[in-house]
């Protein structure tokens, strides 16, 4: 018996005897043999604690953080500055449990955080109702799909290829269970192809999913895209990036029904990819179909301002299998980080931050477009991210780009996200993110290193590869 297993052999024998089973294997009889593992798990033998820690330290030392290299990675998660104030407040022990605050009399702090957070999301998105978070961006988009599926019995979703690949994958996975077909609308010149969207719309379309800005960093023309969706009677869903909403018009202004998004950029660090949170805001008409928890403002018996969970009849502890979602624990600590951050940034600060990103990104775009062998993948308006092609046109860009990224890494620069991982059509594409943490000097260095890497990678290619 190992030190981590509390049951002794005698305990097990007693338990088996009590339930009338001969062996532990008998408990798995109902699982078909074909899917049972017929050998022990392939695990290494036990090792002393010191050795295990040494091994883990060695593994951890292979991580490269954004402090160690000059990183232009984004693609959904962004390296924004998070002030010490955020850690100071979210570290208070009162906030450390995300447990559902069913008892408002002992949970006013948590409930007020949820309420203030909802208010901020509502103001940023221009939509009247926000919930108190979902798990992350992709599942929030999936939840919007579930709302549409429950709202009207239509059979098709349309989703722009500009929506984050993870969110598209999540929606496809969830839709399979509902029997809804998911069709992708292609991009043209970096933005959703409005003609292809118009052709695909019909009275069987339940919802259309867009992203603002889209995965290639391009600002979509929601003013033109949304009306045909509404005319077809479909629900317009837009994934959006809260950090750009200081400079972009809010989705609610364009008649978007549901805005969802990834919350990480708002006051949360990269943290190895999570946890983060997803936000979800909608028009008033969908109030009773919104998933997850909602905190409301009220008054107590003495007329004092207070906060409670509201509209709980949508939730699983009351509505059971017909709940609007199966989520009760939310990402409250992450949302707290977001609302502390937004309060720190302030109404003017988020505008100034947006303007700073616009300026830096425009500067970076010009600098990289001037690099020999690099061209812009699209020329649409962008906020903090844009896409380039590396040695496009010459063919073989896909092979080249791995080499380019490696050469940059060798100089301590991560030039961006390789689009070929998700888009066959952009296999020589690179997605470059410019947060306020990247200075002009950093951008100059990126241009210089990228130029050297492209030149080096081209020279290294053998002649037969160039002509292939």
């Amino acid at each position, binding site marked *: 018996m190992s030190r981590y297993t509390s049951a002794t052999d005698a305990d097990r024998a007693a338990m088996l005897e009590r339930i009338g089973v001969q062996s532990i294997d008998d408990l798995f009889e109902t699982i078909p043999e074909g899917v049972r593992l017929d050998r022990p798990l392939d695990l290494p033998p036990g090792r002393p604690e010191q050795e295990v820690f040494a091994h883990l330290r060695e593994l951890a030392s292979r991580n490269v953080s954004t402090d160690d290299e000059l990183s232009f990675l984004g693609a959904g998660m962004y390296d924004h500055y998070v002030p010490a104030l955020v850690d100071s407040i979210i570290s208070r022990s009162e906030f450390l449990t995300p447990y559902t605050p069913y008892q408002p009399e002992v949970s006013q702090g948590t409930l007020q955080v949820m309420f203030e957070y909802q208010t901020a999301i509502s103001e940023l998105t221009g939509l009247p109702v926000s919930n108190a978070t979902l798990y992350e961006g992709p599942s929030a988009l999936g939840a919007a799909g579930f709302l549409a599926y429950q709202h009207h019995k239509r059979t098709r979703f349309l989703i722009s290829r500009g929506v984050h690949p993870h969110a598209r994958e999540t929606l496809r996975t969830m839709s399979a269970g509902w029997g809804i077909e998911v069709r992708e609308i292609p991009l043209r010149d970096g933005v959703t192809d409005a003609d292809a969207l118009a052709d695909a719309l019909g009275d069987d379309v339940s919802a259309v999913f867009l992203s603002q800005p889209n995965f290639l960093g391009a600002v979509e023309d929601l003013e033109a895209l949304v009306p045909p969706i509404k005319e077809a009677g479909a629900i317009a869903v837009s994934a959006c990036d809260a950090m750009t909403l200081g400079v972009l018009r809010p989705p609610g202004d364009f008649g978007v029904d549901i805005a969802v998004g990834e919350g990480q950029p708002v006051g949360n660090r990269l943290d190895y990819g999570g946890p983060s949170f997803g936000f979800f805001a909608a028009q008033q008409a969908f109030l*009773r179909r919104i998933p997850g928890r909602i905190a409301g403002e009220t008054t107590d018996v003495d007329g004092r301002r207070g906060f409670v969970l509201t509209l709980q*009849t*949508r939730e699983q502890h*009351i*509505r059971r299998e*017909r709940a609007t979602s199966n989520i009760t624990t939310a990402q409250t600590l992450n949302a707290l980080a977001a609302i502390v951050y937004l309060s720190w940034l302030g109404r003017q600060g988020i505008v100034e931050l947006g303007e700073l990103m616009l300026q830096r990104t425009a500067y970076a775009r010009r600098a990289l477009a001037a690099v020999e062998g690099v061209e812009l993948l699209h020329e649409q308006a962008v906020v903090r991210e844009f896409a380039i092609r590396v040695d496009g046109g010459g063919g073989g860009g896909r092979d080249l780009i791995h080499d380019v990224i490696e050469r940059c890494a060798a100089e301590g620069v991560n030039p961006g996200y390789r689009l070929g991982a998700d888009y066959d059509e952009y296999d020589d594409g690179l997605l470059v993110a410019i947060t306020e943490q990247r200075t002009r000097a950093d951008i100059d260095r990126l241009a210089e290193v990228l130029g050297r890497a492209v030149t080096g990678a081209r020279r290294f290619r053998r002649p037969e590869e160039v002509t292939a």
Partner: protein
Amino acid sequence: MADASYPDDLKYHAEHDWARIDGDTATLGITWYAQDQLGEVVYFDLPQIGSTLTKDQPYAEIESVKAVSDVVAPLSGEIVEVNEGLADSPENVNEDPYGDGWLVRIRLSEPSEVDELMDASTYEGTLS
């Protein structure tokens, strides 16, 4: 809230619905007992005009501060009118379950089903 009552001119279904028959149409609602069990009604999810009801099957949802419950069709038919007033005043279901608190009006597709419903005294007998 109104006092307990089960008007004699209505027909009743075991799932605590009432029907006021008028030729080939019927007005439907939930009984005093049903609204009393639900507690304060906060929302009635209005079904669509033109949608069809099948006797004994749920056709709408009614939400109180305590729960969301199915409303079961006492008769089969097609919805010709919904009580729009409930959108702003769902409490009418509590205050006046047989009047302003009506839910939908339907055109009967199987008028003979009326014979399967209970009269007021029979229904009231099932409640004790």
